[in-house]
């Protein structure tokens, strides 16, 4: 029986990908930021997940304004890095897990989630940057990845509660998959940042750290945070943190924080990441 064993929440800032791709991670600007991921790199390498369900948002790469799916699950065999305007990142293709992805997709629809199934798409920095942060620069990513794209660009995004419920449903679906595999779920995006207007550059360390605290201390509070609070407190792009709640919902009531890291800035953004172990 497949099982979700752990979750990671992490920023997915495009410039982190650039720093990795062009070997700048030793520079002063980047050293602390990347060093915070060292523990996690070691831990993931030792955990050897077979599959990562990677929750992210597409940033006008695979989807333009013609079609805006709220929840889209990638059931294809392979997903290529998107050309976001400066050529595709020179990172490995993402190899999917169609058996598990289709299994989850089918379970979710029966469970009354109105999924969009995607068989072909390119994946942008939202998905590939967390892979670089956790796995470094291998010739091939060391596990299969199921992309789960969430609309957080055109309003309204899904509510925090809906994200949480989707996470719970994903956990049920994984548990009903007959193969004995180790599955992780990663929620990405955030933390506080605003990429637009006179208020750009907003960072809210206190709010971000309370969010990180409450992923283990009081997750039910996080589930009820309204969109307006993300916008006011964490900047217009801080809304991406609703995607962490899919990860958190999938881990069940009790988790243990294994590692945590917070750094300002990377580009316009607060970098945060957390590793949570599922307790049965």
């Amino acid at each position, binding site marked *: 029986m497949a099982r979700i064993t752990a979750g990671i929440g992490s920023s997915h800032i495009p410039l982190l990908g650039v720093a990795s791709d062009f070997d700048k991670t030793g520079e002063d600007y980047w050293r602390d930021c990347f060093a915070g991921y060292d523990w996690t790199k070691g831990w993931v390498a030792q955990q050897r997940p077979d599959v990562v369900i990677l929750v992210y948002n597409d940033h006008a790469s695979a989807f333009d304004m013609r079609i805006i799916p709220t929840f889209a699950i990638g059931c294809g065999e392979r997903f290529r890095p998107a050309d976001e*305007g400066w050529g595709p990142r020179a990172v490995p293709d993402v190899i999917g897990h169609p058996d598990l992805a289709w299994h989850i997709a089918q379970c979710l629809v029966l469970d009354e989630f109105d999924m969009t199934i995607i068989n072909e798409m390119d994946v942008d920095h939202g998905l590939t940057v967390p892979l670089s942060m956790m796995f470094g620069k291998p010739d091939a990513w060391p596990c299969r990845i199921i992309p789960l794209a969430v609309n957080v660009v055109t309003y309204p995004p899904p509510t925090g509660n809906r994200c949480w419920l989707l996470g719970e449903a994903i956990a049920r679906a994984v548990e009903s998959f007959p193969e004995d595999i180790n599955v992780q779920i990663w929620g990405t995006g955030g933390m506080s940042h605003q990429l637009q207007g006179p208020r750009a550059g907003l960072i809210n360390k206190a709010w971000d750290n309370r969010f990180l605290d409450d992923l283990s201390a009081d997750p039910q509070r996080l589930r009820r945070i309204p969109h307006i609070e993300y916008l006011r407190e964490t900047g217009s792009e801080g809304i991406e943190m609703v995607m962490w709640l899919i990860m958190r919902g999938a881990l069940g009531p009790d988790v243990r924080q294994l590692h945590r890291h917070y750094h300002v800035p990377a580009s316009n953004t607060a970098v945060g990441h957390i590793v949570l172990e599922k307790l049965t």
Partner: protein
Amino acid sequence: MTQSIQDYLAQFEDIPGTRVFTAARARRGYWLNQFAMSLMKPENRERWKADESAYLEDWPLSPEQKDAVLARDYNRCLDLGGNIYFLAKVFSTDGLSFLQAVSTMTGMSVEDYQAMMLAGGRSPEGLRSIREDR
């Protein structure tokens, strides 16, 4: 649904210096964003770089939208329905980073903006709500 969509949307107008990408903005900026998206293709980037005005003739943008794009006035682009992730295709084609492009919207020089970020970023204090002045 515990909250009406009208109340939900009204809140967004209370945030200083911020345009939330609502349906109203998505509709207004439809072709502006679709134009920007077209720059994901290398061949389109070449045509755009060769003659920006000619390239824009193929797209049903309003004159204001065309002017704002040609002027790289990103605040104006946002007012006219642009979304930053779409507009990113324009500034990426220019060779600008997110930080460089975003700083142009703040009234700060890129150096001052960069220094602010290194010092911990912009505080939310006083920037949460226009109405409540907090």
